[in-house]
């Protein structure tokens, strides 16, 4: 009998092409997602060496980081010259190398990590990579998914493999159920608050426990998306009935007898009883509150009922970093979080740009007007946008005073024109609150879509539970 294995062990074992004596493995890659920012140098490398894309049918490209999200984006003048060149390069590379492609004009275009699952490219038990750290998102399906650099993008394009050493196993268990007003975003931020941004370094996290099981697939994607902010390259959730129900019927999901065969295989994808984890973190679902970040690292997380901490209370060389955070964020120790006034609200990103996120925000906004200077919703894909319009959510956002945008990464990383001005304070549903992330000098507080909506209608950070009836 073989030793009990974790979910990560099983997926890994099924993808080893070759193992060297020193343990270095060549790992097969089932899906390679590509966007315009981290791929041009990789395609250029192929051209210079006369190499081809080994598996164009397993390679999927979509422009998302640079593209404007304003309604007039078909007009080329809405893009800067360098952005236009980058998107044009992806158009050309997709055509020249014959890979699957969703151009800006396609309704299926959107953020790469939203498009992959939506189109059924992402399936349980697969290896998925992309030149983007939030590739961890796809782990929600029980797929081993992680970000890679451009050199590795070129390596995967040329060989459909990656040279890898196996990481360690880490289990994050969320027991019990979440309380009302608490969401997947609060889980994932709370875990990072607990473990720190380096807590998962060298590990693949498997999220498990009742509260994880009770999440929808979209919630699970939110949780896995931010595994990277906890330092882990990948996060995983074992597939179950919810996973299969999400996948069935998607354009690139298997059909008929192949579906049945896939299903039988997927049902073997769970961590065996007694399998070893190198690190275990357990959090009670009932203990998780709606949270926000106060600083410039995703680990700077506190319940919304809390106060801005004093830097001198930190240890491990973090006193200086905490003081720097407070200076950058323009906050004072002891200030109540709910007293922090907000200028701008951003709802979107690969973390929280899916239909359920928009529903959660709209439920809070309905019948209210924003009290912030500006607020925008950027759906994660053209299809999410269309569905939100059909459900009447778009009208709720517009009536409240939000801008209703086209799909893209937008203000999550502010490579396109959607940026914060210096000192502008934003309630954001995205994933990083680093200095300058949303624009030089911009101040970011991360939170769930419902919490961002609550801040939009009160004009300050707000405990969404107070607005729920």
């Amino acid at each position: 009998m073989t030793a009990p294995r974790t979910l990560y062990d099983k997926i890994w074992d099924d993808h080893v092409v070759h193992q060297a004596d020193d343990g270095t493995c060549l790992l097969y890659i089932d899906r390679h997602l590509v966007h315009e920012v981290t791929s041009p140098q990789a395609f250029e490398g192929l051209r210079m060496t006369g190499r081809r894309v080994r598996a164009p049918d397993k390679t999927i490209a979509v422009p998302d980081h640079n593209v404007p999200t304003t309604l007039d984006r078909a007009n080329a003048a809405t893009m800067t010259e360098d952005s236009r060149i980058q998107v044009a390069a992806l158009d050309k590379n997709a055509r020249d190398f014959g890979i699957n492609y969703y151009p800006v004009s396609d309704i299926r275009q959107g953020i790469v990590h939203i498009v992959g699952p939506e189109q059924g490219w992402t399936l349980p038990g697969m290896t998925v990579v992309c030149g983007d750290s939030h590739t961890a998102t796809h782990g929600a399906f029980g797929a081993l998914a992680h970000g890679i650099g451009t050199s590795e993008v070129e390596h995967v394009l040329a060989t459909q493999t990656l040279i890898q050493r196996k990481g360690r196993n880490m289990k994050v268990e969320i027991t019990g159920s979440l309380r009302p007003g608490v969401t997947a975003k609060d889980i994932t931020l709370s875990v990072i608050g607990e473990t720190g941004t380096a807590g998962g370094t060298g590990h693949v996290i498997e999220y498990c426990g009742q509260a994880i099981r009770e999440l929808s697939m979209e919630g699970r994607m939110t949780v896995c998306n931010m595994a990277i902010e906890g330092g882990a390259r990948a996060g995983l959730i074992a597939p179950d009935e919810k996973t299969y129900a999400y996948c069935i019927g998607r354009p690139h999901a298997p059909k008929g007898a192949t579906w049945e065969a896939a299903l039988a295989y997927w049902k073997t994808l769970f961590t065996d009883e007694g399998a070893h984890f190198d690190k275990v973190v357990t959090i009670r679902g009932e203990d998780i509150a709606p949270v926000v970040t106060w600083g410039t690292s995703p680990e700077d997380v506190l319940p919304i009922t809390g106060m801005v901490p004093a830097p001198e209370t930190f240890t491990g060389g973090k006193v200086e970093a905490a003081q720097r955070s407070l200076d950058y964020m323009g906050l004072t120790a002891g200030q109540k979080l709910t007293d922090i006034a907000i200028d701008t609200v951003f709802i979107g990103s690969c973390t929280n740009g899916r239909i359920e996120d928009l529903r959660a925000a709209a439920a809070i906004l309905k019948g209210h007007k924003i009290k912030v200077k500006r607020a925008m919703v950027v759906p994660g894909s053209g299809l999410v946008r269309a569905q939100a319009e059909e459900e009447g959510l778009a009208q709720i956002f517009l009536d409240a005073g939000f801008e209703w945008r086209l799909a893209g990464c937008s203000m999550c990383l502010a490579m396109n024109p959607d940026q914060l001005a210096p000192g502008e304070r934003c309630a954001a549903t995205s994933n990083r609150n680093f200095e300058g992330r949303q624009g030089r000098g911009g101040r970011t507080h991360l939170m769930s879509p419902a919490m961002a909506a609550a801040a939009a209608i009160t004009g300050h950070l707000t405990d969404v539970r107070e607005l729920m009836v």
Partner: protein
Amino acid sequence: MTPFTTLTGIAAPMPLVNIDTDMIIPKQFLKTIARTGLGKNLFDEMRYTQDGAEIPEFVLNQPAWRRAEIIVAGDNFGCGSSREHAPWALLDFGIRCVISTSFADIFYNNCFKNGILPVVLPPEAVAHLMDDAKKGENARISVDLANQTVTAADGVVFAFEVDAFKKHCLLHGLDDIGLTLEKAASIDAYEARAATTRPWA
């Protein structure tokens, strides 16, 4: 890729923890389709004011560290995005080695693909080297990849661990795509097998 063998140089002290890739190279510089030319924007928002003037206090703007080839950094260096523009910018500036107590995984990997050696050492060793770094030209640090050692200015030697394959590639400046393509038969065999066991993939 330029091989990395040994290096003796000035180290810049950057004790801040969690120096992320947005700090190393802000996103407005990711719109390039080249790998070169990013050095002038390394640490851009820490290094320059909004109107492009140098911020004199920033370490790499100070005369002692303008020609630094090594960075001694706080914990979790390179966290954040997967952008390889971060090591490209470091390399273009002239940094060939970064020493810290820990690195984010993707950044760590990306360094090896670009002739940069990331060295992980225990906190006491990093603190010792940080003191050297603060002395600039008066306390050069030596790094020897073959022997896996870092030697402080006072002669104290710290040994570090590095993956054997990564070390081999970096020492010889090898293109790992070429190495992998030598295993094309194994990849063909795997694909043939997977076509029956996992045809949906």
